[in-house]
C-alpha cells in the first residue's frame, strides 16, 4: 500500500518535470525561430544603411556648360551639366575608347549630373575650377564594394564588366571610393535605380493611411462598442450583431481590398492608389478589432462603479461618459494601437486598391498616390537587381521597428493608466 503511494508520488513528480520541460522547449523553439529570422534580416539588411560613393574630380568648364560670363543663378540652373559629367567620368581613364567611356559612365548612378549640378549651385565660384565630387556609385558597384557581388562569375553573366571592375579597383586603391551612411534611403522616394531608391514615399503613404484609418475606425468603433455594451438591450438581434462583429474580425484582408476596389474606387470614384482609399479600406479591418477591445474593457469596469454613479442620481449617459468610458480608455487605446499595428503591416488590400503602383514622388497629403511600407517590401522583393535585396531587408527592419514601438506603447498605456480595483 505504502509502496503504491510512493510510486504515485514519483509519477506525479516526473509528470510535473516533464511538463515543465515541454514548456521550456516550446519557448526555446519560439526564441530560436525568432533569432534566426531577425539574424537573417539584419545580416542582409544592415548594408543598405551604407551607400558607396565614388570621388571623381570634376572640372566645371564654363564653355562645356554653355555658360556666359558672370552667369546668374537662373543661368546656373539651366546650364548643361551632362557634358562635364560625362567628361569627368571619361577622364578616369585617359586611354578609354568610346565603348569604355560608356562603361565608365555607367559606374555611377543614373542621375550623376544632378549631383554635379547641386555641387555647383552650392558654390558658384567653382566655375573654371576642378573639384573632387562625391558621386553615387551604381547599385552593382555598390554591391561589389559591400562584398555582396560574386566577382568570379563569367563576365557575360554579370552586369559589371571586367573593365569597370578594373577601374573600380584602381579607384579603391587610390582611396577614391567611400562608404557613408545612406541618408537617401530615408529621404528619397522609390526609384527604378536601386542606389537611389528610398522609403520616403512608402513611409509617408503608410503614415497617411494609418491616420485616415485611425480617424475613421476609432470614433465609429468606440461609439458602436459603447452603444452595444451600455445601452443596447440584450436580445437576439444584438447577439446577432456581436457574432457578426467577431466574423468581421476573421474576414481575410484581401476581401476588404476587393470591397475597397469595388465600392470606393468603382462606385465612389475616389482617387486610385491613394492613402485615403487605403486608410478607409484598412479602417474596415481595424473596426472589429477596436470594437472588441473596447467592449472587453467596458465589460471589465466593475458594475459597482455604474451602480454607485446611478445611485447618486447620474443619468445613464452621465454614468457612461463620466465613469465607465474613461475607465475603459486604457484598454480601448491599447487595442486601437494593436489594431493600427496590424493595419500598418497589411499588404493584400492595399495591392488591390492600387497602392502597389510605382510612385517616385513623396506624397504630401492622403490624396496623393503613394505606396506603403509592406507594399514597398513586396515591390522591391519582386525586382531583379541585386541592390534591392538588401533594401527589402532594410525596409522590413524599419517596419518591424515601427511595429515594436507601437506595441510597446500599447503595453505602456495599459500598465500605466489602468486602474487597479481594490
Amino acid at each position, binding site marked *: 500500500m505504502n509502496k503504491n503511494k510512493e510510486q504515485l508520488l514519483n509519477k506525479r513528480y516526473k509528470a510535473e518535470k516533464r511538463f515543465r520541460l515541454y514548456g521550456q522547449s516550446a519557448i526555446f523553439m519560439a526564441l530560436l525561430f525568432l533569432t534566426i529570422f531577425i539574424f537573417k534580416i539584419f545580416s542582409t539588411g544592415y548594408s543598405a544603411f551604407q551607400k558607396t560613393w565614388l570621388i571623381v574630380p570634376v572640372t566645371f568648364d564654363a564653355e562645356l556648360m554653355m555658360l556666359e560670363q558672370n552667369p546668374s543663378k537662373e543661368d546656373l540652373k539651366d546650364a548643361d551639366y551632362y557634358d562635364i559629367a560625362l567628361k569627368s567620368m571619361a577622364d578616369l581613364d585617359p586611354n578609354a575608347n568610346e565603348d569604355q567611356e560608356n562603361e565608365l559612365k555607367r559606374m555611377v548612378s543614373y542621375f550623376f549630373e544632378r549631383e554635379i549640378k547641386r555641387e555647383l549651385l552650392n558654390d558658384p565660384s567653382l566655375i573654371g575650377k576642378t573639384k573632387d565630387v562625391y558621386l553615387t556609385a551604381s547599385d552593382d558597384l555598390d554591391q561589389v564594394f559591400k562584398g555582396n557581388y560574386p566577382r568570379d562569375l563569367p563576365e557575360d553573366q554579370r552586369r559589371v564588366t571586367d573593365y569597370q571592375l578594373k577601374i573600380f579597383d584602381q579607384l579603391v586603391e587610390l582611396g577614391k571610393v567611400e562608404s557613408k551612411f545612406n541618408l537617401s534611403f530615408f529621404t528619397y522616394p522609390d526609384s527604378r535605380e536601386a542606389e537611389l531608391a528610398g522609403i520616403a514615399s512608402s513611409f509617408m503613404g503608410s503614415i497617411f493611411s494609418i491616420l485616415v484609418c485611425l480617424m475613421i475606425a476609432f470614433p465609429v468603433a468606440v461609439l458602436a462598442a459603447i452603444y452595444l455594451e451600455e445601452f443596447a438591450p440584450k436580445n437576439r438581434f444584438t447577439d446577432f450583431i456581436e457574432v457578426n462583429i467577431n466574423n468581421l474580425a476573421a474576414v481575410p484582408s484581401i476581401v476588404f481590398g476587393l470591397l475597397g476596389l469595388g465600392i470606393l474606387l468603382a462606385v465612389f470614384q475616389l482617387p486610385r492608389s491613394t492613402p485615403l482609399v487605403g486608410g478607409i479600406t484598412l479602417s474596415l479591418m481595424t473596426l472589429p478589432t477596436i470594437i472588441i477591445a473596447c467592449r472587453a474593457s467596458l465589460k471589465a469596469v*466593475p458594475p*459597482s*462603479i455604474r451602480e*454607485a454613479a*446611478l*445611485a*447618486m442620481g447620474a*443619468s445613464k449617459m452621465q454614468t457612461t461618459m463620466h465613469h465607465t468610458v474613461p475607465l475603459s480608455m486604457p484598454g480601448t487605446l491599447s487595442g486601437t494601437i494593436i489594431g493600427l499595428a496590424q493595419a500598418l503591416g497589411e499588404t493584400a488590400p492595399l495591392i488591390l486598391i492600387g497602392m502597389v503602383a510605382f510612385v517616385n514622388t513623396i506624397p504630401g497629403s492622403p490624396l496623393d498616390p503613394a505606396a506603403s511600407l509592406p507594399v514597398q517590401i513586396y515591390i522591391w522583393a519582386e525586382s531583379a537587381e541585386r541592390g534591392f535585396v538588401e533594401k527589402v531587408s532594410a525596409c522590413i527592419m524599419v517596419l518591424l521597428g515601427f511595429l515594436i514601438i507601437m506595441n510597446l506603447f500599447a503595453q505602456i498605456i495599459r500598465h500605466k493608466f489602468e486602474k487597479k480595483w*481594490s
Partner: protein
Amino acid sequence: MIKINSKNVDVYYGKKQALFNINLDIEENQVTALIGPSGCGKSTFLRCLNRMNDVIDICRVKGQIIINDFDINDKSCDVVRLREKIGMVFQKPNPFPKTIYENISYGPTIHGMAQSKNEMDEIVETSLKKAALWEEVKDRLHEPGTGLSGGQQQRLCIARAISVKPEVILMDEPCSALDPIATAQIEELIDELKKDHTIIIVTHSMAQAARVSQNTGFFHLGELIEHGSTDKIFKNPENKKTQDYITGRFG
C-alpha cells in the same frame, strides 16, 4: 410620520417572482432594519425604493411605493430626481477611482448644487464631517479614494451619499465587508445620521439590527412575515418563523 408607504409590491425576475405583496411603512427619521435569510428579497425590496432594479433588464416591479405623496413607480417619476432624494450605500465599498474630493463633489456637481468652488468645498467638508471621516482625510482630499482602508472607503461612500442631502438613505449590508471596529464606527454614524435622514438598512446581523434600528421588518422567501418596532420583533415576535429566525434556528 410615515415617510415611505409601499402597497402591494410584487417583483419579478423574468418569470420568477421574488417579492410577494409587500406592504411596509417606513417611519421618518428612524432607522428601519430589514432582516431575513439570504435570498429572501430584502435587498430586492431596498432596491425598489430608489428604482435601482431598473438597471436589471428582466426585472419588473408592480404595486405602489409612495414617497412624499408621490408614487415612484409612476411613469411620470424621473429616476434622476428620485435618486437625488434617496441615496444608497452598497454592500461593498465602491468609491469612484478618483480623488476623495471628486468622490464627494460628483453628486452636487451633476445636480448643480454648488455655484462656486467655495460652496463646493463647504459641501465636501460638511459631508465628510457628517460621515466622521473629515479628521482622517482632510490633509489628503486630493488623493485617490481607493487608497483608503475598507472602513474609511465605506464612510466615504456614506459621505458621498449624503452630499446631495437626500431625505432617505438606503444601506445594503453596509458593514458586511468591514471589521468589527469599522462596523462600530458605521453604526455610530447611522445613529447620528437618523436626525436628518430616514434610514433603511438591510443586514444579516441580528445584533446589528437590534443595536441600530427602531423598526424591523422580517422577510422570508419573498414575503414580509412580520414588521414592527425592533423591541417587539426581537423580544416578543408574533410569528413563529420570526421567532425561529431570531433565535437562530434557521437562516
